[in-house]
């Protein structure tokens, strides 16, 4: 019984309080729609989540799907580049010394700064968005993979030595499995960042998706839909993190 309260009732209380605070805020700021009005104006998007009425006027699931596809592409591109870099930096301290300063400088750059560069490089909004997502989301994977390789216990290196394993076998049978949990932590963090970047890049490029929808509704002064988009972004991000967390837990259990 107490367990049910902790796991179910308490979170609901928190949500109720947040909605209460929203409602109070909406009474004070005239432009901010109340929770009830937001629901009233957005329910068509939620109740018909897969209907396509126009270029950006689409059901919320359809919009989220466009964004997710773009995130998936950028994220996969990012980790495909980041994982090998992480392994190389983990194995070689020379390479780490060489590239660490560059990494530290590139890491804090905002997606908003990368996007124009992407537009200059690729001339089109879609590849520019992928470029921004990949460049921003790759760092946690690079760093975690590198740390994972460094954290391999000396015992395993000794096993590789006494069994006289080839470089290739050492890599596939020892380095990769030993690094896998760290790598997945990196993937999880990278996916979180990729999802953050999507909104910014869709807003700047005006492509259909949750971020594009948000920007368009702001321009057409439908503030309730902004709140809908914000909540959708949060819920999807939360679900993505949970999914990666599950995959990670499964991996560690092996």
């Amino acid at each position, binding site marked *: 019984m107490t367990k049910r309260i902790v796991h179910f009732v308490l979170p609901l209380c928190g949500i109720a309080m947040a909605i209460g605070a929203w409602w109070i805020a909406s009474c004070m700021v005239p432009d901010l729609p109340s929770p009830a009005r937001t629901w009233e104006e957005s329910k068509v998007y939620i109740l018909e989540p897969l209907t396509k009425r126009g270029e950006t006027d689409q059901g919320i699931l359809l919009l989220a799907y466009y964004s997710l596809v773009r995130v998936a592409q950028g994220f996969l591109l990012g980790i495909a580049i980041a994982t090998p870099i992480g392994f190389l930096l983990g194995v070689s301290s020379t390479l780490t010394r060489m590239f660490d300063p560059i990494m530290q400088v590139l890491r804090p750059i905002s997606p908003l700064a990368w996007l124009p560069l992407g537009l200059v490089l690729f001339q089109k909004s879609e590849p520019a968005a992928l470029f921004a997502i990949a460049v921003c989301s790759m760092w946690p994977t690079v760093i975690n993979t590198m740390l994972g390789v460094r954290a391999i216990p000396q015992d395993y290196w*000794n096993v590789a030595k006494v069994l006289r394993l080839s470089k290739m076998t050492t890599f596939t049978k020892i380095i990769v499995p030993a690094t896998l949990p760290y790598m997945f932590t990196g993937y999880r963090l990278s996916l979180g960042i990729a999802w953050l970047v999507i909104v910014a890049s869709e807003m700047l490029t005006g492509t259909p998706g949750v971020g594009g929808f948000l920007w368009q509704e702001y321009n057409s002064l439908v503030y309730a839909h902004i709140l809908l988009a914000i909540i959708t972004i949060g819920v999807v991000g939360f679900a993505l993190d949970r999914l990666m967390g599950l995959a990670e837990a499964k991996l560690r259990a092996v």
Partner: protein
Amino acid sequence: MAFIQVRDVHKSFTTANATRHVLRDVSLDIEHGEFVSIVGAMGSGKSTLLSLLAGLTMPDRGTISIGGEPLRGVHRQAAFVFQNYSLLPWFTALENVRLAVEAAFPDLTRDQQMMRASDALANVGLANAIHRRPRQLSGGMRQRVALARAIATEPQVLFLDDPFGALDALTRETLQQELAGLGSQSDRRVTTVMITNSVEEAILLSDRIVPFVSGPPLDYARGALSKVERAPATLGAAIPVELARPRSVAQLAHDEQATHVRAHVIATLTTAAGRRRPPAAASNAPSAVLQAVAKETP
């Protein structure tokens, strides 16, 4: 020329603020097919010597040769059993052993490698546990897998780094007995170097026991007891164990010759250790050291 020849080996480790000399002028001959135990207290540098023999680290000075060839890196036909098993947790027992077989016999087919690996596991009594992962096995079973992994490669030389040190007393005894059995049943005897801090274990398994003698502390004279630094360790005179095989722990407990060897080894170790103690404590050093030896046997 002996099969394994160690000549005037010196080894030190340098950390950020100090250099620690671990081994000094170590020389040792081991004949083909011999089982030699190196006995000494914990922290005396035994493991350093073994990793030098196994080619995991290189000596600062001196030479080591196996089968007449100077040692460069890990010997082609050597196998190593670590104290902490060092099994790969993401593989089953069978896969752990097969990895070693694959590296030693790359020309065999996958099925043949599997066969060899499962035979080796059956040999150490694990026929029913081959598909379990290390974390599903007890300490004794894990060390059996490690033993199977070493034996499956049909090594010429076997290095055992305190292989039963992490096990409880009963498991320890069973495994010792099994290792003795494996040694006597195989047609070709594997040259074996084992490190242990159990004199009993050394007598049960070895042809010869080499006591590891630590040097005296360097700075008694300076009175700096807080950071006592010992002189590098060296080897005492080898003590032959000329007892008939097969041996058993029960039989050795009452055997006159075993008693003699035991006394000899302990005397060598305690005089060596006695020199490590401050002069004031020297009078009761032997009993103190015996307690220390007893404590170090888990």
